[in-house]
């Protein structure tokens, strides 16, 4: 698991090109990304969403950001003076824009639709940006626009750090406000005696054009102000991150109260994936076991609750959710024990494949006609009763969100304690080097088995809540994709880090649900995110404490 164990002295070195060639190369990469973005159908799908009312759509912003990033990257190369860097940025942008123009021309003049379904006249129309379709003007404006945007990116890249930070903060504020218009608008709606502003701030689908520059200026000013304040007061970074965590917790607690049911539903899903994420975190993050059959335990928990709390024909009992929950957890843990015993002697990549096979076996079995009379086959089990608390039925998304959140809090506490207990240290030791750990007297089979069983139990709890939330379970809810989702959450958030699970779940589950146009491409985004994280920031968005210590040894542990 450690990211720096050298296994071979053989290294691959990268050739450095001349700055102008490098700029052209960056431009080509950006152009390829733009063309791919258009051809997978993302451009057309996201073009319907206005981030700034009647001015900028989501897809235009996405493309703009790609070109902007290309310009920024060329300028940050740092091998040439400001004027040359700016010129290189312009070149990169022009190249990227030219790639897109070529695509438009090809779409119109050659019929590509038999092969590439997205290369439609609609795409050419959208990419012509209002000019006559595929006219000289439409084709010429793309490289020019690209050069301008990339030049802007290069200019930002050349600014001193304070200015750069202010610019990116301002852009970020506008983007977040525009993208999550629904969330903010519903929050403003729920504020008492405060009915006016959302009309001025937000239009029917995005920001109002007048509000965008104001927000940008506010974000940039805030960044500059904060920078000056922190420098003067000398506040250490840990204080800032503590404030960040406090804000995060407060936001998590009040979120469904101040927004609408849809957001509460999304928050509920996030909490559910956090539960599962913490389960897999024990297995993968602490003990280093790559488990791709994790969804099987989720299924065990869900089917247990479904069979015990349903009034349908397949139910074996009709008891309270609170009675079924412990049973589900215990059964999932037993399944973990049963699976883990044989499988845990294989290591690394092999374990991933073995668990994947086990998870698929469970899914195929549940789906088959052979077990159909007991588990409902592809019809699933329906009419699962909602849990009730003190005679109050937990039915609304918000109340179910708090149920999942409470369970997640318990699980987080348990895994936090486990992590710092003797067994947690044993897991970490085993993850770093199994042979050394064994030599130190750690029983690898027993500690792995414990990790696997506890992880399975957490997944079972998540499955139980899932069944209660949805009110029905189907085999199709338990595909391999769920395991991959959870794996991605951990990798993005940071392996072995509990706050990382929260961050990962928000980024990977919450955002795609809130950005509906984006949801269609979420798995593509997951794949890109997994690859990018491994290349850029292998320790995750919110790394575990020990990973951070490795990076900054001088930073004293609080």
């Amino acid at each position: 698991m450690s990211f720096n164990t050298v296994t071979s002295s053989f290294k691959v070195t990268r050739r450095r090109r001349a700055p102008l060639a490098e700029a052209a190369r960056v431009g080509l990469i950006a152009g390829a990304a733009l063309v791919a973005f258009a051809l997978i159908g993302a451009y057309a799908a996201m073009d319907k969403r206005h981030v700034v009312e009647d001015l900028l759509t989501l897809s235009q912003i996405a493309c703009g950001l790609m070109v902007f990033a290309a310009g920024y990257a060329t300028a940050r190369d740092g091998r040439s003076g400001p004027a040359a860097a700016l010129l290189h940025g312009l070149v990169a942008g022009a190249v990227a824009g030219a790639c897109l123009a070529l695509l438009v021309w090809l779409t119109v003049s050659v019929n590509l639709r038999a092969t590439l379904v997205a290369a439609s006249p609609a795409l050419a129309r959208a990419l012509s940006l209002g000019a006559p379709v595929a006219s000289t003007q439409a084709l010429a404006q793309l490289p020019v626009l690209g050069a301008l945007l990339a030049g802007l990116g290069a200019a930002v890249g050349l600014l001193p750090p304070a200015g750069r930070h202010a610019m990116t903060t301002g852009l970020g504020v506008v983007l977040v406000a525009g993208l999550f218009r629904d969330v903010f608008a519903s929050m403003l709606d729920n504020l008492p005696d405060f009915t006016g502003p959302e009309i001025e701030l937000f239009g029917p689908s995005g920001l109002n054009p007048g509000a965008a520059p104001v927000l940008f200026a506010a974000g940039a000013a805030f960044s500059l102000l904060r920078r000056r304040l922190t420098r003067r007061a000398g506040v250490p970074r840990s204080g800032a991150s503590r404030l960040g965590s406090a804000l995060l917790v407060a936001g998590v607690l009040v979120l469904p109260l101040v927004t609408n049911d849809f957001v509460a539903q999304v928050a509920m899903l996030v909490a559910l994936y956090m539960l599962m994420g913490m389960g897999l975190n024990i297995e993968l993050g602490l003990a280093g076991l790559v488990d791709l059959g994790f969804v099987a335990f989720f299924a065990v928990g869900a089917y247990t609750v479904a069979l015990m709390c349903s009034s349908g024909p397949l139910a074996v009992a009709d008891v309270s959710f609170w009675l079924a929950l412990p049973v589900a957890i215990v059964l999932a843990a037993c399944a973990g024990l049963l699976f883990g015993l044989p499988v845990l002697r294989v290591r690394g990549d092999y374990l991933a494949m073995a668990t994947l096979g086990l998870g698929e076996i469970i899914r195929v079995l549940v789906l088959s006609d052979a077990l159909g009379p007991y588990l409902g086959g592809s019809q699933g089990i329906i009419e699962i009763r909602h849990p009730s608390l003190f005679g109050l039925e937990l039915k609304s998304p918000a109340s179910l969100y708090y149920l999942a959140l409470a369970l997640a809090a318990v699980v987080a506490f348990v895994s936090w304690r486990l992590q710092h207990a003797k067994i947690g240290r044993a897991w970490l030791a085993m993850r770093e080097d199994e042979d050394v750990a064994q030599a130190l007297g750690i029983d690898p089979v027993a500690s792995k088995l414990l990790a696997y069983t506890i992880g399975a139990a957490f997944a079972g709890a998540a499955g139980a809540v899932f069944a209660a939330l949805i009110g029905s379970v189907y085999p199709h809810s338990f595909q391999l994709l769920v395991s991959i989702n959870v794996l991605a959450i951990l990798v993005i958030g940071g392996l072995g880090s509990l706050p990382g699970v929260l961050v990962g779940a928000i980024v990977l589950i919450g955002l795609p649900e809130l950005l509906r146009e984006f949801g269609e491409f979420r798995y593509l985004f997951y794949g890109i995110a997994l690859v990018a994280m491994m290349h850029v920031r292998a320790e995750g968005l919110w790394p575990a404490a020990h990973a951070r210590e490795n990076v900054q040894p001088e930073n004293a542990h609080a």
Partner: protein
Amino acid sequence: MSDAARSATEPGALAEWLRRSTWVDHILLAIRIGVAALVLVGLAGGLTAGTYSAADFASFALFGLTIGSIYALIALGYTMVYGILRMINFAHGDVMMVGSFAGLFAAGALNDVGIVSAWPLLALPLVLAAGMAAGALVSIAIERIAYRPFLHVRSLAPLICAIGMSFILQYAARGLFGTRNRAYPGFGWMEGTIGAFGLTIPIPQVVAFAAALIVLAGLLAVVKLSRLGKAMRAVAEDRDAAALVGIDVSAVIVATFAIGGAMAGVAGVLYALVFKQITVFMGFFLGVKGFAAAILGGIGNLGGALLGGLVLGLAEALGPALILEGYGLPAPYQLKDVIGYGMLVMILIFRPQGLLGERLAAKRA
């Protein structure tokens, strides 16, 4: 009588085993016995039930050999990459899907100019070449993105990157080519059946099987006889030493990925010939099956990949009829995948070195 004789002759061995083994070994032994009993009881039931005739079984077996040869082609990619990098290329199954789609578009283009129906024997190699080229290109891209940056460190990064690449390939293909099933064009006379030994065999099955064997033989020749093959074996043996004697290790690794990807491309086209329908999501699970075949034959062993593929194909084709039918289960063919995945899990647990068990680096397994 025999029990007494055995306990008299080898009391030491049994006692020794009991003394050395742990509770985990006992449970594993129990699982072994349980699985063996399940298979034997099912086999007895299946043979006595008499639902299927001998001809049925023969045609199942032929089908099993066809799909098995496709598994074997996929398994080759896993085995070659594993032999050199000691890592599993998780995205390999999706390389096969890409090859299949490339073949589809090539076949479509050839069909439009009329070559497919006029000279099917000329069209097939062209389509195969398109699949091979696409597979090799995608495989090289995977190596570039997911493996090369992490060559000198040991970590989970390549595995996670490869899982990411697999998703990128699947969902990019979904966006590019659409979600609906695509049908391969017919290859003229190759669509018929031939009768032999009282059986009716679809010609695509025969063609696929023969093509798989030819490609495999070509690959074996490359690895055993050519200079590149020699370099590959050297890099597999010791990467540092190979670099010391002047072998371009990077180039050899790229060539290995390219050849593995080309094999997957062939597998994709042959799969499409036999099954006619392809989707963008077919690659992943066929990849898992190919991996199972590679493990079954002994990973790192080219002949083993062929053997493993054929055994897995036969087991999946015959298993439901022979074993599951014996338990009187409804619709046993739904559980075909259970047999495939079950074999994967069992092999990984009990015989990770595979059937043709070469050495297995226990450190990495």
